């Protein structure tokens, strides 16, 4: 068992806040750069994400009079906590910092935090855009969490284990689960798009309709915290998928390269699609994605 001090160091430095933010910031930059180049633009410099953070943290946060102050402050913190607790449970090329038998269930729970925090942020901000944004986020979460959890549990049922390191070790010996359960992998990647709020499922934050939705009323440091969430999301959520289905990594470099590939794939999907309306996104997940997840889930139950 790891000591408390080690866990705290893990949360703050490696593989926690500082490391994840550095890698996530790079992946976010990669997405923006690829997007810009494919749109015949120049794109931001490498350090753009970090100087954005510095700028936001140096500014004053305004909490709207009609908002509920405490929830507005708690929302981004809750997301950051959820993402950091997930990353210390993932085996990044070596044994995870915190290892126990039910880590998959915990990771699924913690990864739902950012979505919940968005709902909290939107509904407590007292702005109509925030209210619409959080209701959209809630609808999208209902739509994507079910196939997402089902496809993750496919592996648990196949291996009769809920441990993330057991899943990784099995893949070291028998090849990535992508080949065994391709449908579940596709489902997970589609849900990933909704989870990090990218097209075609970015209705909760649609800038031309509801001006960023839940984030409309955020400013200064608090918006900076949400920027950190955004950066972390770009690393932690793909890392979770790499761990589950793409074979993890024998070392850190291999792991990061796989994440890099996944981020490129996500960027391409984002670039070539317009935005779904929220009811269309909901329908897409329920009509197409959920059946795909069910097929592989049932396969794992009957064909062990």
């Amino acid at each position, binding site marked *: 068992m790891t000591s408390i001090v080690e866990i705290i160091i893990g949360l703050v430095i490696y593989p926690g806040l500082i490391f994840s933010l550095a890698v996530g910031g790079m992946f976010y930059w990669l997405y923006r750069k690829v997007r810009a180049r*494919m*749109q*015949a633009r120049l794109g931001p410099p490498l350090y753009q994400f970090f100087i954005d953070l510095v700028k936001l943290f140096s500014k004053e946060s305004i909490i709207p009079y009609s908002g509920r102050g405490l929830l507005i402050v708690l929302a981004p913190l809750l997301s950051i906590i959820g993402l950091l607790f997930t990353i210390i449970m993932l085996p990044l090329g070596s044994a995870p910092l915190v290892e126990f038998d039910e880590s998959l269930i915990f990771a699924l729970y913690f990864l739902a935090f950012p979505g919940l925090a968005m709902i909290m942020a939107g509904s407590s901000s007292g702005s*109509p855009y925030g209210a*619409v944004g959080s*209701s959209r986020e809630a609808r999208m979460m209902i739509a994507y969490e079910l196939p997402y959890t089902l496809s993750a549990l496919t592996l648990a049922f196949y291996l009769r284990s809920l441990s993330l390191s057991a899943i990784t070790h099995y893949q070291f010996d028998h090849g990535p689960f992508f080949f065994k359960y391709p449908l579940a992998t596709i489902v997970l990647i589609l849900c990933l798009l909704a989870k990090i709020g990218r097209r075609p499922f970015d209705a909760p934050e649609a800038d*031309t309709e509801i001006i960023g939705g839940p984030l409309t009323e955020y400013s200064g440091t608090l918006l900076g915290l949400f920027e950190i969430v955004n950066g972390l999301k770009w690393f932690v959520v793909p890392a979770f998928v790499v761990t589950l289905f793409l074979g993890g990594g024998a070392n850190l470099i291999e792991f990061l390269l796989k994440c890099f590939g996944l981020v490129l794939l996500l960027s391409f999907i984002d670039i070539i699609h*317009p935005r779904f309306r929220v009811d269309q996104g909901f329908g897409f997940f329920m009509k197409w994605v959920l059946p795909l997840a069910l097929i592989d889930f049932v396969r794992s139950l009957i064909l062990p």
Partner: protein
Amino acid sequence: MSAIFPIGPFHPALKEAARFELEVEGEKIVGGDFKFGYMHRGIEDIATTKSYHSNIFLAERVCGICNTVHSTCYTQTVEALLNIQPPERAKYIRTIIFETERIQSHLLWFGVAMHEIGYDTAYMYMWRERENAVDMLESVCGKRVNLGINTLGGVRRDITPDKEVLMRRKLDLLEKAINKVGKIVLEDKVLKARVKDVGVLTKDDAKKLCVVGPTARGSGVDMDVRRDDSYAAYSYVDFDVPIEENGDVLSRTLVRLGELFQSIRIIRQAMKDLPKGPISLEELPLPKINEAFGRVEAHRGELLYYIRSNGTNRPERVKIRTPSVVNNNSILPMVLGETIADVPIIIASMDPCFSCTDRVTIVDTKRNVSRTATLSTLGRRRGL
């Protein structure tokens, strides 16, 4: 229970200031109130204080995107007032510039519409291709946005043979780009899901609200000033007027797509038949007491100018009826029953231009009368 969802005065979906107060139940729209008037500039009043020649440049500044439309309509109305005809070559050059501007305006519209539904890649692509049209305008007029090509009794710059070569080359590039635009609009499934059967304006409603331009043609109303009351060189060229029957956002998009192809066709014909001769009249008569009325088919619909002269070098009254004035009334029937997510694309689908729309009318709800304010009253109110 319904709540008020505000859009504007400043909102990323609006390129100009306007306020929409939408009554919503959940995300569904059940009512609404629209307020314009943030961009009032008093152009009609200023026009009566300037000479006929200076007013060309004022008319051009009514709207940035359709500036040649305004200056063409103004010069044609003044030419009717003075009873003069510009030379044939000038008419052809006006037609070419007019249609090139329509191409750049429609491509700009396509980009904005794509941006409203989150398709930023197509937006960037279309605005890049639009540069070709702007380059064509620049090569002839020397400017990119406010072109300043029209003058009373003709045009100010000629299309020389070397410019013609450049324009033909750019036209080929544009045709290729427009084909690709059509492919994106017709084949992308996500895009189609967003625009099909959204914001329907029925033919009856369209006629009742007197909408004009692509908004009317998308609802099956067959009207086009270029064909019905031809001006410049439109009677010498051969073109079709695209009509769609469904009245949704997709039909308005397809009408604009069809118009892009027709514009290229018109420019090609006009460049082939370009007659030789002078480009403007040497001398202009003095205006007598008279009145004249002119109309053109702007990119957004029918544009009207009415000018009355009193024998001096300044017009007594200039009345401008821009297409957005009538089209804006159709927003409410289009958005009722749709969701908030569709409002930006529905508003964009009729290509509104608020700054050329705003008028000052004071409505006294107690006595139920309305009157139009003059500049002097407004000045008094502001304490000027």
